[in-house]
């Protein structure tokens, strides 16, 4: 995910008093973005006061030592992902930054309410498009956009889903605008990952700053696996002696650590496709004693690979016949199939309208402003302001089919404008986004780096959010890309009790 582009050159804050300017903050540069720790004039925000003082009092090599201890702990725990190159596989840890990102109780309350509202609307939307399609008949969302989406699963029409909760685990990416408000950058409604890093980060950071942690009265997050278990249990077709499994693509998947971690923490079986079989529309696991029935599957395998009979034939990760067992109501899948239709770039722009349509409420967390080229008024705005906008093709990802207006030449902009005019339905546009910056430990000192925030929302019989989430950080100076594959790391996220 590329958070827009067009960064301005950062300028060093001048003549600041207080901790900014002194070690370990000597290289801390405030830019135009919101900074999590410092106010624009260089003062410490109250939620960071204790941490700021602690950092200023620690010798530099002590910080280094704690950062190394933290990395070593990740290595020993095996919290690694595998990089394949020249036939040699190397395991690397995902860099963890020692310094927590601190969110106040008031900020969190607003985020939490907004996320619950958003997931409620998205689940209602999914139920709607897989049943009556009222939202399409009412013209709120264009029918063609839904039925033409490659993530729309016709097979899911009329399949009952427990509690109407299509999305049981959601990871929503939030960023903070320059004015300090959180906005949604992206909904991840398929198989979002990262929650194990949230928990592992807490574990090491609490050990690195025990005093500050205790004094700050940070809200706990350790109960996430229990909440996930309760959510999965609530999906079971019946309620006695429910047998739950986490379905993983296997040890070569980059999120394998997380799959194993969650299974262990919940006390449920970790299975792969080859462990399961379907007989008479019932799913069984092959055990040493014989076959054991499975009632709920937390699947960490994409829709396409779940069942080679119904979806991709060449999938060896899935289970033949799983979809029929699911449709027969003999097994619950979390997340339901077909949720991807609600998290693509075009639907994203409609989510505020969906919230109003289904809940008759105003969205509590806004979207990043998004222009839909399919609407004539917005199209003309986009064409008139191409030099300020990032224009993206709806069906593409990974930076393809994209124009970064501020960096493009006049000729490039004109060529792209022609493409947009020819097929406006395929394009959206957004202003370039500034992510907030947070203190990050870089080569012995503390510097500002851009961060986002991915809280995890659980949705079964009820909706639960563990306070916090995964803060991802772009470790390269000035970079806005927080992905681990491109120099991103992660941080512990502290939500304060008051």
């Amino acid at each position, binding site marked *: 995910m590329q958070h827009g582009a067009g960064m301005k050159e950062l300028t060093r804050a001048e003549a600041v008093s207080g901790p900014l300017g002194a070690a370990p903050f000597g290289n801390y540069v405030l830019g135009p973005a919101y900074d999590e720790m410092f106010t624009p004039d260089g003062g410490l925000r109250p939620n960071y006061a204790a941490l700021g003082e602690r950092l200023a009092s620690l010798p530099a090599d002590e910080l280094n030592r704690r950062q190394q201890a933290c990395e070593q702990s990740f*290595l*020993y*725990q*095996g919290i690694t992902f595998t990089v394949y190159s020249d036939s040699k596989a190397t395991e690397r840890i995902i860099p963890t930054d020692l310094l927590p990102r601190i969110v106040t109780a008031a900020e969190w309350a607003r985020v939490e309410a907004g996320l619950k509202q958003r997931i409620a609307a998205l689940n209602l939307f999914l139920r709607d498009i897989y049943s009556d399609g009222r939202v399409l008949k009412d013209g709120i969302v264009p029918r063609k956009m839904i039925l033409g989406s490659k993530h729309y699963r016709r097979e899911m029409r009329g399949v009952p889903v427990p509690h109407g909760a299509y999305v049981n685990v959601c990871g929503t990416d939030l960023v903070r605008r320059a004015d300090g408000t959180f906005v949604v950058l992206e909904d991840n409604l398929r198989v979002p990952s990262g929650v194990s890093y949230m928990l592992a980060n807490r574990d090491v950071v609490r050990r690195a700053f025990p005093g500050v942690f205790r004094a700050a009265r940070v809200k706990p997050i350790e109960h996430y696996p229990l909440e996930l278990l309760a959510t999965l249990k609530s999906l079971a077709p019946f309620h006695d002696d429910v047998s739950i499994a986490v379905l993983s693509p296997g*040890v070569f998947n980059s999120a*394998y*650590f997380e799959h*194993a*971690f969650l*299974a*262990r923490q919940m006390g449920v*079986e*970790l*299975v*792969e496709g*080859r*462990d399961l*079989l379907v*007989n008479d529309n019932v799913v069984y*696991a*092959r*055990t*040493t*004693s*014989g*076959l054991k029935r499975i009632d709920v599957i937390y699947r960490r395998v994409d829709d396409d690979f779940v069942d080679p009979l119904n979806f991709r034939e060449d999938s060896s990760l899935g289970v033949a016949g799983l979809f029929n067992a699911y449709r027969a109501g003999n097994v619950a899948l979390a997340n339901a199939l077909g949720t991807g239709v609600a998290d693509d770039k075009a639907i994203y722009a409609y989510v505020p309208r969906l919230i109003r349509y289904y809940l008759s409420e105003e969205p509590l967390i806004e979207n990043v402003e998004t222009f839909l080229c399919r609407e004539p008024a917005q199209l003309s705005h986009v064409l008139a302001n191409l030099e300020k906008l990032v224009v993206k093709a709806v069906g593409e990802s990974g930076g393809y089919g994209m124009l970064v207006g501020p960096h493009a030449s006049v000729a490039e902009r004109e060529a792209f404008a022609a493409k947009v005019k020819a097929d406006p339905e395929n394009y959206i546009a957004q202003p370039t986004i500034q992510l907030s910056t947070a203190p990050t430990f870089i080569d012995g000192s503390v510097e500002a780096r851009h961060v986002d925030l991915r809280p995890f929302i659980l949705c079964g019989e009820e909706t639960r959010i563990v306070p916090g989430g995964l803060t991802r950080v772009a470790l390269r100076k000035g970079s806005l890309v927080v992905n681990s594959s491109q120099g991103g790391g992660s941080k512990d996220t502290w939500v304060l009790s008051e």
Partner: protein
Amino acid sequence: MLARVADSMYWMARYIERAEHTARLLAVKLESMVEQSPEEAEASWVRVHAGLTGEPFKHARADAFEIVRETAFDPLNHSSLVSCLGFARDNARQVREQLSTEVWEHLNRLYLRLRTVTVESIWVHQPSVFFRDVLEDLFTLGGVTYTTLRHGEGWHFLELGRFIERAQLVSRLLDIHFGLAPGYAQPLPAPKYFDWLVLLKFCTAFEPYSREYTATIRPEKIVEFLLFDAEFPHSVRFAVDRLREALEHVAPGAPPARRSGCERLSGRLKAAVDYGQIDDLGSVSVNRFLTDIARQCEQVHDAVYAAYIAYDAETVL
């Protein structure tokens, strides 16, 4: 327990046992080589090589440095110490959620540490010390496993793997001391007093043997001890007793009909070591007996897989 999980637990234990065996043979050999003549040391190294690899000897001469490199550090040799620990760790990773954090982290740390070591780096000091340290770590791993893991089905699969492997490794080692090492062109000089002593040490058996038979070294007593002693953890009989026990506890829900094959075969193996006797120390008789033990271990392994791990789903529906 998932059949795939049982498979990984079983192999994890087998590889750890093999790694322990390798570390001990190399430590003992490196410690004892100073007391042997060059010819004796060479024959003894060839036997170590055979005991560890079961493969024909490809080196021009038995050079300690090269043999240690091959059997401990060569990643392309699938039975080297570093390979065994790598495979043990791969299997542990497959069943990470079944293991305690302590077991996993101990094994992972040991592997990560070992991966960076080379034969050159240990040769500048006393190389045997390195293998003694690895042994210490493996003993700790055994203790951590015993004390932090639930002694449920998974643990019994670990026991099963460990003791099948041990029975085979000890049998092979005895076999090599009583006859031709497999695949070797010329016969090795017959083991001398010192070789028998070292054989006992390869199996941590010198002190227990001495208490039983005094320190008088007699090959027939050594065979008797390493094959038939009921109480010594590295005897074949002890290993067979443990694997019998483990088999009683695995797959608790499997019906008697599925258990019968494993019970019959492991019972026959137990009878062989409970009532077996070696009258004639001619290599033919000893080798035949040991070959039969090794074959029976293989049959138990196959029966376990057929009954509990690689069974055809149609047969249980």
